[in-house]
């Protein structure tokens, strides 16, 4: 089968969504399909720009390429799922959240002006059309599926995706908490740094880069080396950090899904998250596969201290997580997407 995987691209930004699209293409090829990543740059501001960026996808003709039919389109995100194709499958990582759950929060982009309100409604309308014409709509997590139902009345099937391929392994924990994330406010890494302020025994390694880096570094100043910013690193180095950490912190605000808990589990590490983290709570169960606390720095600090004092329990929770992560496979995903 010839499959076009459609995903938007924010130039110079690479995160979980980009990894997922690449891995899907690789998984399709491994299983004998012809697969290609189709992408376009996405800039969602200012104002109604988000709409003409989305419109670009409507103009793309993916029915065939070079005289040969494209059998299936799998689109992963807004606005890529606006593309038209008779056999379009939407595998929704997330919608344009500024128009939905982020609206009227500090993460939103639409003001109370009449134009901004109408732009938000246009995104809603566009989603109804674009997702409504898909042959099937999958969501990568229950959280994403619930948003689709709540905001758009669209029933999506649940289809989580596997984490990125890394040489996962585990080794003796070295007492630090690992954060693997793009550094932006929504990922809430500041909460972990504040936890280190409350609990001097907490050591943190922060992997990733992003627009919030300078603020986070400023926040970590004066913590006497408790916090290390590793920046962007290679796969081998990342696998090594996973293997050696005590636990992995992952607590964005109402996250869609997030691959990080799965990656942590494949390294047999428990995940530290918060009660409002959204998608991660579908696999991180308190004192079964990690620790779930209120989104407060002091609580988080106490949780890390507990893990440091109970490393056997932490290891057991990590191993329990591994069993969950191993159930999510590319075979199941490809079968569902192409069935």
């Amino acid at each position, binding site marked *: 089968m010839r499959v076009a995987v459609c995903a938007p691209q924010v130039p110079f930004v690479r995160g979980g969504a980009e990894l997922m699209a690449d891995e899907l293409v690789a998984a399709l090829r491994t299983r004998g399909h012809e697969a290609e990543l189709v992408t376009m740059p996405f800039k969602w501001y200012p104002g109604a720009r988000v709409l003409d960026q989305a419109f670009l996808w*409507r103009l793309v003709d993916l029915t065939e390429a070079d005289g040969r039919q494209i059998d299936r389109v799998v689109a992963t995100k807004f606005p890529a799922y606006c593309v038209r194709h008779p056999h379009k499958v939407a595998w929704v990582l997330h919608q344009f959240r500024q128009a939905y759950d982020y609206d009227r929060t500090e993460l939103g982009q639409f003001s109370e002006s009449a134009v901004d309100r*109408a732009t938000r409604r246009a995104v809603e309308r566009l989603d109804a059309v674009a997702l409504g014409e898909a042959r099937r709509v999958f969501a990568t997590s229950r959280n994403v599926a619930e948003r689709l139902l709540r905001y758009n009345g669209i029933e999506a099937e649940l289809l989580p995706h596997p984490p990125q391929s890394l040489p996962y392994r585990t080794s003796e924990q070295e007492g630090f908490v690992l954060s693997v994330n793009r550094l932006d406010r929504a990922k809430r890494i500041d909460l972990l740094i504040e936890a280190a302020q409350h609990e001097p025994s907490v050591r943190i390694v922060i992997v990733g880069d992003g627009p919030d880096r300078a603020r986070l570094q400023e926040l970590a100043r004066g913590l006497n080396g408790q916090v290390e910013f590793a920046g962007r690193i290679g796969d081998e180095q990342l696998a090594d950090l996973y293997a050696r950490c005590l636990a992995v912190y992952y607590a964005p605000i109402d996250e869609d899904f997030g691959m990080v808990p799965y990656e942590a589990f494949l390294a047999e590490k428990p995940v530290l998250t918060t009660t409002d983290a959204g998608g991660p709570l579908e696999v991180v169960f308190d004192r079964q596969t990690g620790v779930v606390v209120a989104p407060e720095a002091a609580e988080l600090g106490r949780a890390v201290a507990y893990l440091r004092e109970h490393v056997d329990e932490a290891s057991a929770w990590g191993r329990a997580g591994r069993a969950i992560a191993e159930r999510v496979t590319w075979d199941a995903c490809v079968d569902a997407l192409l069935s």
Partner: protein
Amino acid sequence: MKVAYYSPVAASRSGIADYSALLLPALRERVDIVVAEPRRRAPEADVALYHIGNDPDAHGWIVDAFRRRPGVVVLHEFVLHHLISGITLGRGDPRGYLDAMERELGVPGRLIGLGVLDNLLPLLWETQPERFPLAGTILDRAQGLIVHSRYVADRARAAGYGGRLWRIPHPAWQMDRVEPATEVAGDPLIGCFGHLNMNKRIPELLEAFAAFRRSRPRARLLLAGGTGERFDLTRRLERLGVGDGVVRLDYLPEERMWSLMAACDVLVNLRFPTMGETSGSVIRGLSLGKALVVSDVGWFAELRDGVALRVPVDEYEVPVLEAALGFACEHAAALGAAARAYVEREHALPRVADAYVAALEVAAGGDRVNEEVLWRIAEAAAEAGIDDAGALAREAVASGIVA
């Protein structure tokens, strides 16, 4: 976003005032609302919302404000002849009336209007308003239209309205527990609430009830509401010989109406001709989970099977109505449960308020968003040498990118 809200207010005996009393608190939770008042300066707002019904006393000032500043119209009924005649002829403006008639039917309409003015023809708003709805003068200026039914939506489109249109169901009252009145009883007790006139098919209802009562002699019919001047209900009751089977009450305060409705086994709300209105009384009945019998016309015909028994208005109306009363009494519990489930699903107040806000947001800012996006599309098309930027614009509309 700020909304200027024009509606009759609760003090008037108006179904639309009741409607606003129900809707406004939910809207206020979602958007900034300024309620406009008669003879006061129009409030500053991003968009104005005008509730328009057929009563010139309640809605004349709203139409005046609407003419000064167009906005979104909530068309509570499609037939506005009484309203238009009231705000034209009633204010000494025969030319306005003739213009409205001409808008409706062209030159023949103007001539018919002249016939009315010269007393050569009967007063159309009293005799056959449904044939001359006169909604056009409102539709022409509406920046957006909110209707409650497919029936009114279709009629507005047929009348040439091409603008934005939203069909938003009438909100339901959230009645957790209403204590049924005990002073009126019957086995069964059938209720008919609202203004009682020929349009409500009261003669047909009385005839069907008289027949029904032969097999259910303890049945009673509660008729609650004012009567029209030319409708002699008392004489009709005497003639049919059902005097003691019918309980007659005049206009009721809200609380008492609810408790009397709750006491009924079956509620009847017939209509013909319809002015395209939605019945607040039917919505109340649905909210209470009552078995309902309605006419199979207009909005009433859109009530789904199993939610209400719909009686066609034809030569078999009376016997079918009699049978429907029997069926409704027998299956009152099941019909009532279906009614309540339906109203909770389709007419839930939060859902209605959300739909209003969505409509108002698009009405307030949609044009500017469209202009902005279409301009950039057209500009890019022109730069790329595409002559027919209209095709791109049509695609933008089809995909929902522009409204």
